[in-house]
């Protein structure tokens, strides 16, 4: 058995383990209830994803995440330190195309938008309070 064969299960293998019809497993893959990949025309299920699916059926969940939320002023300063720009000037550069269209810059543009809009959003929410 190759390394690939040991880490990916076929639909008939999963159907046999779950005592289900193969067509039901295909449906679960199509709906993304069960993660799957395509090997050419065949569908395979990563073994780890299948094990996680079984864990989930038994009620298993990953541990809760810890949160460490800095204040918005810290975020603003962090953004300036990382980019050398204020969010507004970053957005201008992003919009005009002077900042290259890379994955990292796309991410920073979302942060710039969020930092710029946060005070407006808070004002909007406060105004909506009864």
């Amino acid at each position: 058995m190759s390394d690939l064969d040991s880490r990916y299960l076929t639909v008939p293998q999963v159907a046999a383990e779950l005592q289900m019809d193969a067509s039901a497993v295909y449906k679960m893959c199509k709906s993304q209830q069960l993660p799957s990949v395509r090997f050419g025309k065949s569908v395979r299920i990563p073994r780890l994803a299948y094990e996680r699916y079984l864990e989930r059926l038994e009620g298993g969940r990953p541990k809760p995440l810890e949160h460490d939320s800095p204040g918005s002023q810290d975020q603003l300063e962090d953004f300036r330190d990382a980019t050398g720009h204020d969010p507004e000037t970053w957005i201008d550069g992003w919009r005009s195309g002077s900042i290259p269209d890379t994955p990292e810059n796309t991410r920073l543009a979302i942060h710039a938008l969020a930092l710029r809009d946060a005070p407006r959003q808070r004002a909007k929410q406060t105004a909506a309070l009864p």
Partner: protein
Amino acid sequence: MSGRGIPFVFDRLSEIRDQLHLYGFRLDPRPGTSYVDPTYAAEPRTGIVEVTAGLEDCPLDVRVQLVEQWRAGIDGAHAQRGLSVLAYTYWVGCVDPAIDLHYDLDPVRHPEMPLHWHPPAMTVVRRPCGPATPGRAMQAALQLAADIERLQAQGLNAAADIVDSLDLGDYVP
């Protein structure tokens, strides 16, 4: 909703984390919002949800980075509970061979094509597509890992050769 921002981002982060776990990803256990080395963050003040995760049980270093900006209003993507996503980027990449792709909602830079994706390519390419989700990006990461391994087993090792052999139909939302 209160003036405390968007507490829903904590629920959203948990939802994405559960889905990452199901798909076989691990998160760096440290919370962090560094712009240089992000791990995961939920920021109610800005509406940002951000996660970086790596695929487990895989000989390749395959990662996803998922960033969403939530705000009040239902005119954006993934609308629920009176909120929606103004902008997102879902990035999928393999470190070696260096191959990546990303799905974006970007109404600022590309108002003519806010929903688009950058398919795996050796040059910058942008194509229109339907809405993407974190789950779609996780699916793409699994597919990328499987495709690279399968093609390497067939003797293809250069990133450009692997990219040329990918079926983009398996990746487009």
